[in-house]
């Protein structure tokens, strides 16, 4: 039993779940029982996939040892490309992939510049944050394009499904992608390479891993997921605003770190990133329900974020100090 607890708590993503449950209880009380009500959960779950998809990509990339600050802009750019095409009468079947291809292209550029010139991805993607946002504004002319009502098969992405209409379709997409990426990271040789590349680049190279290609692919996956997430959001909101996703980059990194991903690479899990994203959304939601005044809102948000990581670190430390032979 102790052994079980130890193993369990040593995994940062699972320690995160403990904090999540604690938080849910507090919010449940503070919101007079609304927090865990069906409608509120439905609300949380409806929005979650968009942020969590971005967090998955960023987590993967961070495990690979790189950063992506441009996800927020790609989140806006990909659906904008789609939206502008749709508004021009291009059918969805072409416009949708065009948006995603744009996202892929951004990832490719990020990756190639970073790897080819050996510069920090922090700068490459910070630059790309501006460039992609600018492109979004340019192609839209500054105004959200008016998409014909039935141009998008919105049902495929945002319809409610499941018992009590608990989930949106987007949640299923998210689940499928999460499982896929998580498996790719933990079970395939590609995942092994990602971890090695981020864990210790010289060793990964010495062992013959094509680290440049691994990094570029991770950049592309990260961008693609951000673009896809943005597209889902636009389907849900109905119009591609040029301003969506601003500030998302820091949130996504925060989600990854809360979930135990190391900023230096090599360490982390997809599940952790997702739990981080859930925590961020839950904190946000719970604070609104707790009627925190506007001026104090960010204070509560900031403190709880820090607290989440402190509790995580503390649980893990306690677990490690348990004197049980595990292997």
């Amino acid at each position, binding site marked *: 039993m102790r052994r079980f607890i130890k193993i369990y708590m040593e995994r940062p993503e699972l320690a995160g779940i403990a904090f999540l449950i604690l938080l849910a209880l507090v919010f449940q009380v503070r*919101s*007079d029982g*609304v*927090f865990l*009500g069906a*409608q*509120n959960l439905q*609300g*949380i779950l*409806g*929005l979650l996939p*968009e942020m969590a998809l971005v967090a998955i990509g960023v987590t993967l990339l961070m495990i690979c040892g790189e950063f992506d600050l441009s996800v927020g802009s790609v989140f*806006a750019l990909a659906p904008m490309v789609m939206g502008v095409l749709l508004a021009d009468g291009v059918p969805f079947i072409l416009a949708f992939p065009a948006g995603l291809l744009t996202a892929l292209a951004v990832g490719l550029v990020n990756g190639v510049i970073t790897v080819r010139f050996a510069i920090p991805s922090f700068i490459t993607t910070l630059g790309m944050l*501006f460039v992609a*946002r*600018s492109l*979004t*504004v340019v192609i839209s*002319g*500054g*105004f*959200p394009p*008016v998409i014909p009502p039935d141009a998008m098969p919105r049902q495929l992405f945002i319809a409610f499904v499941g018992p009590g209409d608990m989930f949106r379709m987007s949640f299923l997409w998210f689940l499928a992608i999460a499982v896929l990426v998580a498996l790719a990271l933990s079970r395939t040789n590609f995942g092994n390479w990602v971890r090695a590349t981020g864990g210790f680049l010289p060793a990964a190279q010495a062992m013959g891993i094509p680290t440049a290609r691994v990094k570029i692919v991770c950049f592309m996956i990260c961008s693609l997921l951000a673009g896809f997430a943005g597209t889902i*959001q636009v389907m*849900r*909101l*109905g*119009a591609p*605003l*040029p*301003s*969506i*996703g*601003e*500030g998302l980059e820091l949130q996504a990194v925060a989600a990854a770190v809360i979930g135990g991903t190391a900023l230096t690479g090599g360490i982390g899990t997809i599940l952790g990133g997702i739990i981080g994203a859930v925590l961020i*959304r839950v904190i*946000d*939601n719970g604070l*609104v*329900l707790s*009627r*925190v*005044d*506007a*001026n104090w*809102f*960010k204070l509560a948000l900031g403190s709880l974020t820090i607290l989440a990581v402190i509790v995580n670190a503390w649980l893990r430390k306690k677990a490690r100090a348990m004197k049980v032979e595990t292997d």
Partner: protein
Amino acid sequence: QDEPMDIVFTHHSSASNPFWQAVKKGFDDACEKIGADCQMIFTQTEGAIDQQAANMITALAAGPDALITSIVDNTAFDQVIEQAVDQGVVVIAANVDDTEGAQGNARAAFVGQGFVPAGYALARKMSEFFPEEGPINAVVGISAPGQNWSEQRGQGVVNFLEEYKEQNPDREVEITRLDTGTDGAVVAERVGSYLNANPDTTAYFDTGLWHAYVAQVLADRGVEPGEVLMGGFDIVSEVLNQMEAGYIQVQVDQQPYMQGFIPVMQAYLAHNFDLAPADVDTGQGLVLQEDVPALKELAAEGLR
């Protein structure tokens, strides 16, 4: 005069804000009409007054003929504008003015409508939709706490509600301020959850246009239009759609196109004929459901 006029427009918003894109359109169109060399300078983050001030300083170094700017703070721009006036630049305030008007700042004239009065007007109009009796629970969504445009609009709304409370001592009026953010999805989620937890809410005021996305959440949940009154600022297609659907009752429209267009004309007259620029009120601009059809086309063109 052969030399084309050189006009610069600085303000406190970023390029991804559709409202300011409409101002830009008016500005660019006007410039084309008078054949002027024009430049609008956005900030990189929304509401960055420090960046705006920096941009003004830079723009002035190039010696423009006219400077159009929003004056979102009573003191921050005083020095720069005074310097510009000393340089002989025509300075016109657009969109927002010093709250002390001409006393507070050296600018020649103001085209637009103040934040506080706009908020006040919004709330006053909205009060006409309030239920006959029972308590009033109003929620004011401060999109960006600490940022002038948002705080002042919110303040205007709160000011009216406080007055309303005094005038109706028999009614319970409660005002809640929420930090709602400036991302449509987040606003929708936050306010949506709040309304869900507090179904007795009477009205939701947004200091931007993000209540349109809240409306969508309500529609999703099967909440009837009008159960929660909603109002906010600026016209975009999404807002008009939701007004048509009945979820949004009142919207403030400052006629952004006009705010971009008129100052150029005034600057032109001032520069070429020494005609003194005059204040122009771009309208109380309160849009109700019945105005929507007329506006839809204009909105799509970026004119309203």
